[in-house]
């Protein structure tokens, strides 16, 4: 299970010298086994899966946590979609009113994008998921709705004993007193419980969060509290705010570390990072 982070920025791609270290591309992670590649989210990071990174396996599964633009904007530039030899399965959260096809087509259609979703050359299959379990390549996937505006799921990806949990946009602390510290009452608990690696939203400082409750994101503090309550082995803090420079992120993380109690090992997610979990 080889994990690679292709984009860990939140909200909007943010390039420039100030974001060189942690990266400017939005949400995209791959998990590979042999020549099979599972893609989590289609943010701008997905564009890098071309050239020498082009997935060679005939089938590719793309799992979308939700349809906010920072999680789908790269889809139109995902070269396998234009490859007639590829079979591509896109899995995304069901909504109570509109199909995944019609919601994705809002972006993948003129005037926002020149090619219609239905005209893409690959063999395309769409799957609507909610609190679901399914297989993609060698991986077993569990998806559950989690707290974030609009239909949003998180993913627990399992291969043998290795577990990677992906919750890039998540506000488990939404409420009067933050996260309720009982497992049954924690959004995303079942997805993260005991995971080897948890990638979790940590967009805001506590001060920023006080003005942005209900926006669907977390502080480093809440991400680490969530990781601690779910007993994960390691936390990757992601969905960096576009206004947070590399220097700011380091300062934010260091000041959190000074105040934090015992938490599982945590680090700021960095674009380009590769982790071998097997």
């Amino acid at each position, binding site marked *: 299970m080889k994990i690679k982070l292709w984009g860990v920025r939140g909200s909007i791609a943010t390039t420039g010298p100030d974001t060189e270290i942690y990266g400017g591309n939005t949400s995209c992670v791959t998990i590979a086994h042999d020549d099979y590649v599972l893609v989590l989210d289609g943010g701008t990071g997905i564009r890098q899966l071309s050239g020498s990174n082009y997935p060679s396996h005939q089938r590719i599964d793309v799992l979308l946590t939700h349809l906010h633009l920072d999680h789908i904007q790269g889809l139109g530039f995902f070269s396998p979609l234009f490859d007639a030899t590829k079979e591509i399965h896109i899995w995304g959260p*069901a909504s*109570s009113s509109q199909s995944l096809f019609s919601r994705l087509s809002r972006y993948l259609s003129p005037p926002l994008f020149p090619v219609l979703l239905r005209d893409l050359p690959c063999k395309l299959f769409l799957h609507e998921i909610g609190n679901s379990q399914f297989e993609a390549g060698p991986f077993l996937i569990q998806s559950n*709705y989690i707290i974030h505006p609009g239909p949003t799921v998180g993913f627990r990806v399992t291969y043998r004993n290795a577990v990677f949990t992906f919750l890039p946009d998540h506000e488990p602390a939404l*409420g*009067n*007193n933050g996260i*309720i510290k009982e497992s049954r009452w924690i959004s995303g608990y079942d997805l993260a419980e005991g995971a080897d690696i948890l990638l979790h939203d940590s967009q805001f400082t506590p001060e920023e969060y006080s003005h942005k409750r209900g926006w669907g994101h977390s502080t480093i503090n809440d991400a680490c509290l969530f990781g601690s309550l779910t007993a994960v082995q390691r936390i990757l803090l992601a969905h960096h705010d576009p206004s947070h420079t590399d220097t700011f992120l380091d300062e934010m993380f260091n000041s959190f570390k000074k105040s934090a109690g015992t938490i599982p090992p945590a680090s700021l997610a960095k674009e380009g990072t590769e982790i071998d979990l097997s």
Partner: protein
Amino acid sequence: MASYEIEIILNRQLADCLSIPVFITDTDGNLIFYNEPAETVLGKRFEETGEMPVAEWSTVFKPLDEHGKPLHPEELPLVRTLTDEYPHHKKFYIESLKGERQHISVTSYPIISRTGKFLGAVAIFWKLKEK
């Protein structure tokens, strides 16, 4: 034990912010959460009782009509919501175990998930001022 669906969790988080008494049950009527204002109606504290089976919490107070006659369970909004998965509303009286009578208005609604699954019910108890 699996955690609750987020629709249930968000209902609890909302109830926790409100000053109206709110009761949340699972699909069988077991009380899985009640907020602080509901604690005064029930005469119990959630921190102390935790979740309560339907048989236990339904006997804490007696529902009565305006003439003091006991109401059938099927006439109660929450029981009806749990049966037909529709919202219901009714004004009636409740008598606590100590014999105190209170005129209340109860509104109940079903928690139906995004996928259309019935997950439980919420009942809002509103104490009415006597005329």
